């Protein structure tokens, strides 16, 4: 790399884009994921460096430990930063059923949350389990998106069961280590399930991933997310800004798709 390029400001690639929305970010302790905690200030600073205007946030606590406690924490932060944070409500598997649905109802109806998720499914509790399907039905009822960490098979079956739900498939369908190119399967699945959107944050940096997703489902169903502060937002942003796709498609992915989905 040339010296001039090395000296470039961090968010140089994003300067031509505005109103970027991160559809997948977290707040609260990251240590349950086995990594160091990141202060909220550093989280915000990293978003600023990338030119990210608004972040859809859920607390790790609400996804993995206690829905009400975690959602309450999300609410407090969103109230302090209403111009930056868009609160999503989540619920851990152990609290599914009526208790979990009540927690989501409280967050959406009383606290004004704009989405559901990230909800963490696994091989033992897949997305097409009746408990999760009930969450998707709740999202459809409220006309809000639901961000799901799931693999493509259960996601396809759940999407068919609740076609009115707007499902944001987190990590472009990767992360459960099911097979060697999970996103390839997720892209194929999304092609035939119009209510599934591909949210792109993942540790995997496979060249061509974004181009393949756009080619298969159109840029209107590809969504920018970062998983910050687990992952580094600059890395996820570079996938979109460097992808060999039209600039208009990058704008859809980074901004307009989520504006539309969230009715902003």
């Amino acid at each position, binding site marked *: *790399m*040339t010296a001039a*390029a*090395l000296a*470039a*400001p*961090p968010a*140089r*690639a994003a300067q031509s884009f505005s109103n970027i929305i991160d559809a997948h970010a977290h707040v609260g302790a990251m240590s349950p*994921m*086995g*990594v*160091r905690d*990141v202060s909220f200030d*550093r989280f915000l600073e*990293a978003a600023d*460096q990338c030119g990210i205007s608004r972040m859809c946030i859920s607390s790790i606590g609400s996804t993995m430990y206690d829905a009400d406690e975690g959602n309450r924490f999300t609410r407090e932060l969103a109230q302090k930063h209403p111009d930056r944070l868009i609160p999503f409500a989540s619920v851990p598997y152990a609290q599914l059923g009526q208790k979990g649905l009540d927690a989501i109802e409280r967050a959406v109806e009383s606290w004004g949350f704009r989405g559901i998720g990230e909800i963490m499914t696994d091989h033992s509790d897949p997305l097409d389990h009746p408990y999760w399907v009930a969450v998707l039905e709740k999202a459809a009822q409220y006309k809000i998106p639901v961000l799901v960490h799931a693999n493509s098979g259960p996601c396809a079956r759940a999407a068919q069961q609740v076609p009115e739900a707007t499902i944001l498939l987190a990590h472009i369908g*990767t*992360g*459960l*280590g*099911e*097979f*060697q*190119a*999970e996103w*390839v399967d997720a892209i194929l699945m999304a092609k035939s399930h119009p209510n599934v959107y591909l949210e792109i944050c993942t*540790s*995997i*940096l*496979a*060249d*061509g*991933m974004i*181009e*393949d997703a756009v080619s298969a489902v159109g840029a209107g169903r590809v969504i920018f997310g970062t998983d*910050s*502060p*687990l*992952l*580094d937002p*600059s*890395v*996820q*942003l*570079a*996938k979109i*800004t*460097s*992808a060999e796709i039209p600039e208009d498609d990058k704008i859809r992915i980074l901004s307009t798709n989520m504006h539309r989905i969230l009715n902003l």
Partner: protein
Amino acid sequence: MIDFYGFYGPWPYWNSPHTAPSRMLQLMAKNGIEQAVICHTGAIFDDWDKANNEALAAAQADHRLIPFVCLNPVISGEQMVAVMKTYKQRGCRGIRLYPQHHHYRLSEPVAETMLATAEQLGLPVVLSVRIIMQWGLPTLDTGEISAAVRKFPKVQFVLSGTNYGESRWLYELMDSAPNVSAEISAMEGFRAVQEVVARFGAKRILFGAGTPLQYPACNVAKMNVTQLSADDREAIASGNARRLMGLL
């Protein structure tokens, strides 16, 4: 800038659009990468010796490519020593080992012969927890890596394929083994490069991108958000790689 962790040749796991040599070079240029250390994928997934010789020939023909070879211990230790000396004479600058793909352990006699010969020839050795960042790919046991780097303290090892889940192990190993450096192509955690540089300094960290299998821009972005002096930036971007490969 040198991508210390590039590849050359077809990719067997999914369609990768820039694996043709001309497209790879275009991708490098687009991202400001002047040179790439390459290992032929055929040496991992097909005829290892034939593929290594192709990589050596490709690098002889184009100075932007720096050849590493991948060794597969399906021959005797004595034969392996002879092969490694030939590779070195033909311009090989280092070795990559993928025991997780070639079904051997680093503690086997022939593997130890490879490491001892690398020491004798002054060739750095790259060991990768995973070949590139993808959860479903075979992994190399970290305990096996730790044992090897401690048994061969005069070999310069570069560890690769480490993500946030391996960071504590990597840090502990680097704390106790000064012959270990790390490349960044799978470090996806929040400000991961900043963290590892803060802990170990810039001299033991190398820019790697996994070109052309991974988006190079993602790893360039890691460099751009890391606060570094000009000297440290140059060391990570290329200086450390040149030093390890004897290209200074």
